């Protein structure tokens, strides 16, 4: 079983729709969860991060973590064409005093918002 699984899509939704993006993971040591957005030929751009179960909201974006199910989600409300990108979940199993954490990425979900 892969450490982090993410549906690669592609996913196309009409403008204004609510988008749900998901990742599952197998390693219960993961304790730090991030969502990155990556436009074509650009670096990953951090959207949200959290380290606890529950919901975290930032504008139109909500990150949800369920550690008991090893399942994380990103919701996008009122989706816009500018949200069209690849969305990557990234997980870390170490938050050490020396900052050696490395991120384990999902494959990314390619999202297109249709005007």
């Amino acid at each position, binding site marked *: 079983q892969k450490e982090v699984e993410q549906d690669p899509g592609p996913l196309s939704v009409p403008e204004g729709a609510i988008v749900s993006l998901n990742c599952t993971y197998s390693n219960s040591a993961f304790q*730090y969860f*991030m969502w*990155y957005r990556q436009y074509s*030929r*650009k*670096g*990953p*751009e*951090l959207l949200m*991060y959290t*380290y606890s179960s529950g919901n975290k909201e930032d504008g139109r974006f909500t990150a949800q973590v369920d550690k008991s199910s090893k399942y994380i989600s990103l919701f996008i409300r009122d989706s816009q064409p500018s949200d069209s990108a690849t969305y*990557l979940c*990234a997980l870390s199993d170490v*938050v050490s*005093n*020396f*900052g*050696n*954490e*490395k*991120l*384990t*990425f*999902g*494959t*990314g979900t390619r999202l297109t918002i249709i005007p």
Partner: protein
Amino acid sequence: EPEVTQTPSHQVTQMGQEVILRCVPISNHLYFYWYRQILGQKVEFLVSFYNNEISEKSEIFDDQFSVERPDGSNFTLKIRSTKLEDSAMYFCASRRGRGISPLHFGNGTRLTVT
């Protein structure tokens, strides 16, 4: 907003040649990283660097790879003898400090080995 900058944006090299990829991390960041992304595949961790030494490296980061922080601003990745399979996007990232501070990535260098 401060950002991580990488140069060049695209590097083409012949197999067996040495390449140096350059990065300028965000100025008050202390932890530095290289990741790579082969076309169509996941972003993969290569190496982390703190206090002028490697703190962790992946299996990918073999003896052909090295990193250096030659001065107070630059962070470089050297590949001594490139192979075809080294063709990928290479991303530099930096982080401010200990504990929960997220990684900020540059826009990457596309390395093409012919």
